[in-house]
């Protein structure tokens, strides 16, 4: 079995996706991008509760890296085109997860993405976002519809945690692009110091 890094948001999908990978016997490390002040404390609290439940179910250590994402969002909002903000944000999440994978000796990345659920999950945007990293990306829920994911979440006990009150991301633009081009994304990233931002994110990582 392999060692992977799972991006955890606190939503309905990521704990279900993690459940499938753990059930297959993979060793997993979780990463949560802490989006405060563009959200509230609830996503982190939900991730902590999801992991507590899945640790008990699978008797796995499941370390959690919490990485600051608010300063990255501020840099993106100040310096780049808001329409592609979600793709740029996502690229930093992938890059951060890949850095943690390097540190942990993990060989793949994973998410709870399902095709076409939200703007950031169109095929064009997924391609633009994941071009930022080299490790293979595993998406156990890619062909699931929302009802199927919710049914599994209820079965494993994570649904009630995911649906507790919580603030949506305040950094999402009014009309996020659904078909970004990689050329445009790379052009936008020339306006910021990607390496410096990423170094700061990793430097402030905490393990829980």
């Amino acid at each position, binding site marked *: 079995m392999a060692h992977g890094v799972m991006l955890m948001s606190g939503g309905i999908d990521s704990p279900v996706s993690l459940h499938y990978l753990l059930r297959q016997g993979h060793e997993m490390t979780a990463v949560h991008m802490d989006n405060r002040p563009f959200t509230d404390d609830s996503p982190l609290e939900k991730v902590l509760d999801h992991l507590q439940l899945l640790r008990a179910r699978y008797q796995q250590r499941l370390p959690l890296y919490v990485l600051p994402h608010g300063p990255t969002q501020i840099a993106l909002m100040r310096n780049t085109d808001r329409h592609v903000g979600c793709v740029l944000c996502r690229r930093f999440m992938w890059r951060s997860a890949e850095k943690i994978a390097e540190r942990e000796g993990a060989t793949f990345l994973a998410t709870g993405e399902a095709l076409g659920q939200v703007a950031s999950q169109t095929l064009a945007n997924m391609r633009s976002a994941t071009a930022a990293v080299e490790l293979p990306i595993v998406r156990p829920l890619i062909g699931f519809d929302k009802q199927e994911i919710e049914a599994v979440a209820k079965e494993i006990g994570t649904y009630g945690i995911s649906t507790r*009150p919580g*603030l949506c991301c305040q950094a999402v633009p009014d009309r996020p692009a659904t078909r970004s081009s990689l050329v445009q994304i790379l052009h936008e990233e020339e306006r910021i110091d990607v390496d410096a931002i990423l170094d700061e994110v990793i430097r402030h990582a905490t393990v829980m």
Partner: protein
Amino acid sequence: MTYSSLRLCSGRAAYESVPTPRRSLDLAKIRHRLEADGVVVVDARVLLIARLEREVTIARDGRILIKSADAREAERLLAQVLSLVGT
């Protein structure tokens, strides 16, 4: 410009008020007013996050979001923000 009554957001963790008519706010001016009053402000260009008793987001299009699920507290903080930003 007047503000609508507060509406609980879909995530049930914050209240939002929108201006009528919609108009673009001068966030730089509002930031200076808030900071002059001792409020810590995060400036993300298209929105400000003011650290009052609770965090309050002021968007460039005039929307104000208060991170509280308590309607009375949100009303009180909205009044405080509107008096500080002078709208």
